[in-house]
């Protein structure tokens, strides 16, 4: 009887764009009316977070904080923003200061129109305005003692949005489906027959190729890499992940995908692994998160790479 119930389920797909990415909600359901209402609620929440934490919108929470950060001073933040800042602080602590919400100012030195490497003096000047330890965070008050700083939620908001969208669907009673925000994926539940979702991880150097495929019954996967946004100077590739220690793009890993229960944990752990460069994979192993990596010499590793080649 349970099985004839399964056969009643059809897969509904709701593609949309948000957060600068191609996104999709996939849900198995019996009837189209209820499932589209749920997908709309999930995508509305993704768009809400996109607007709330956008770096580009002047009415966003991020813009409000950065207006204060630019001149120095303090601002009280709402409860949701506060938990994201708490989460950012955990990432900062766990990564020995490598994962830093304030490292966005370094982008000034690596703008897409640049044709030469930035002067060391410029990097030094920018690094003086970088550092979560220079910010005083006492919930709900965020205080910037140094003027000219900048905060960026980009490192966690997309993954956080994927988690929330999936939970919205799960709490509406949908047990089979996933939320995919530009490759950051949170599983709602496996296919109705219990089979896992098969997730292909893009090859960091060949957009048409798959570096690894993962079978996911639950949990989440998120990827960080040097290939989504980068600039080329003198034929060399410089990725968008910037080290708050040196002010320069990280080296070593081309991409890393991490599996965790929550997409936000998978995403921040993947970013930290990129920031840790050669030590990234060992750190993920120590933390105990399954992952697959490819370095800039196109060597692969991680427990999930082994699973893929089997």
């Amino acid at each position, binding site marked *: 009887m349970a099985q004839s119930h399964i056969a009643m389920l059809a897969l509904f797909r709701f593609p949309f764009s948000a957060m600068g990415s191609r996104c999709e909600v996939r849900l198995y359901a019996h009837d189209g009316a209820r499932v589209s209402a749920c997908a709309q609620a999930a995508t509305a929440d993704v768009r809400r977070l996109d607007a709330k934490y956008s770096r580009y919108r002047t009415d966003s929470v991020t813009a409000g904080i950065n207006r204060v950060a630019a001149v120095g001073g303090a601002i009280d933040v709402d409860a*949701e923003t506060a938990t994201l800042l708490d*989460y950012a602080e955990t990432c900062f602590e766990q990564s020995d200061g490598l994962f830093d919400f304030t490292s966005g100012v370094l982008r000034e030195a690596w703008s897409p129109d640049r044709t030469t490497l930035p002067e060391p003096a410029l990097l030094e000047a920018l690094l003086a305005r970088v550092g979560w330890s220079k910010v005083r965070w006492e919930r709900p008050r965020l205080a910037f003692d140094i003027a000219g700083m900048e905060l960026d939620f980009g490192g966690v908001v997309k993954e956080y949005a994927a988690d929330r969208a999936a939970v919205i669907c799960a709490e509406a009673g949908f047990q089979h489906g996933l939320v995919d925000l530009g490759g950051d994926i949170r599983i709602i539940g496996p296919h109705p027959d219990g089979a896992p979702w098969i997730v292909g991880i893009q090859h960091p150097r060949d957009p048409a190729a798959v570096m690894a495929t993962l079978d996911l019954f639950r949990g989440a996967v998120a990827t960080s890499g040097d290939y989504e946004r980068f600039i080329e100077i003198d034929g060399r590739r410089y990725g968008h992940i910037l080290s708050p220690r040196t002010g320069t793009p990280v080296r070593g890993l081309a991409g890393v995908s991490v599996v965790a229960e929550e997409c936000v944990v998978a995403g921040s752990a993947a970013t930290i692994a990129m920031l840790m460069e050669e030590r990234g994979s060992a750190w993920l192993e120590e933390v105990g998160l399954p992952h697959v990596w490819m370095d800039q010499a196109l060597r692969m590793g991680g427990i999930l790479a082994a699973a893929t080649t089997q």
Partner: protein
Amino acid sequence: MAAIRLVSPQLAAFTAAAMALPGVHARAADAPRENPWAFDATHMEYSESGGRMNVRVNQASAIIPIGDSFQLKANGIQDLVSGASPIFNAPGPGGKPQQVLTGASVRDNRKAGDIGASAAFGDNQLTLRQGWSNENDYKSTWTSLESRYDLNRKNTTLAAGFAFSNDGVSNHDTPDDFRTRIKRDFFVGITQVIDERSLVQLSLEYSYSNGFLSDPYKLVFVQSGGLLPDARPSQRRQTAASAKYVSFIPAIDSALQAMGSLSTDNWGVRSGSVELQWKKELPGEWLVNAGARYYTQSSADFYAPLYETTPARDARTSDYRLAGFGSLAWLAGVTKQLTPNFSIQFAAERNYRRVGLRSGGTGIDADNYIWGLYLVTLQARF
């Protein structure tokens, strides 16, 4: 992710910080349970046209999970049979057979129940059940063992089972003289999920019965010698095969279910059936279904509406259930999910039995009748 491992302090810190984020985890109360408590109560009415049998059935069952991999099931049935049943056929005007029904209305009260236990070991599930049924003139005890095995990522389920029943049959004239009837059932089945929208189910069943297989209430009319008791061979071997295909069709936002079955036995009764059902979910947690069924069977080798002389072989029956006949039925139902935990179902079917639809042998027009089935079921899951 399924492997249990110690959580590192770093992961514990990440997880704790992620837990604080609003809406990243489903509230535990909303997460569906894999192995719920379940209670069902059903009331069913079965009635045949022309003042024949009428059965009212009350049934209740409970499934009690113990941990994730063990469950107990209990089921109780009480039914009340009333009305008249044909005893034999007698020659009517022009020699046409006519039914002779029981003079007084039959009233019988049956109580039945079974208890079972299921255990899951990885991809295997084993279920043992023990049942009892008791009425004035029929007592039954049965035991069944069923094993299910999931493979191919649960896309394939294999099932095999065995059931054994030991029945005692008497009649009102000799209420304490119970005669034994033993039945053994074997079955194997396979369920294959074809894709996310369709599945197919095949099963094969063999049963062997021996002992007193006659109906103690039935008689046969022999033109040359009057009435003789119904007498059937003391062994019966039945083989049956069935297939079911269910497919969800997005174009009509509905599922279609097709079923077919064939059976044969050493008494010469061959039967076949096909059933088609349409099922559709409607907004507001309604599920409606409607369908039709065709059934046909041939008569038993030793069946005759009337006998001219006493049959040489000691096997004779005029029981309408062993006659050649066929039937057409329509069925419909509606299920409403009242809350996530409660649902109510109404279902009805109406069957038109016609001797003209038989697939062989003989039957009589006097056995044409209509029967209906109406049921209401309340279901709770926690």
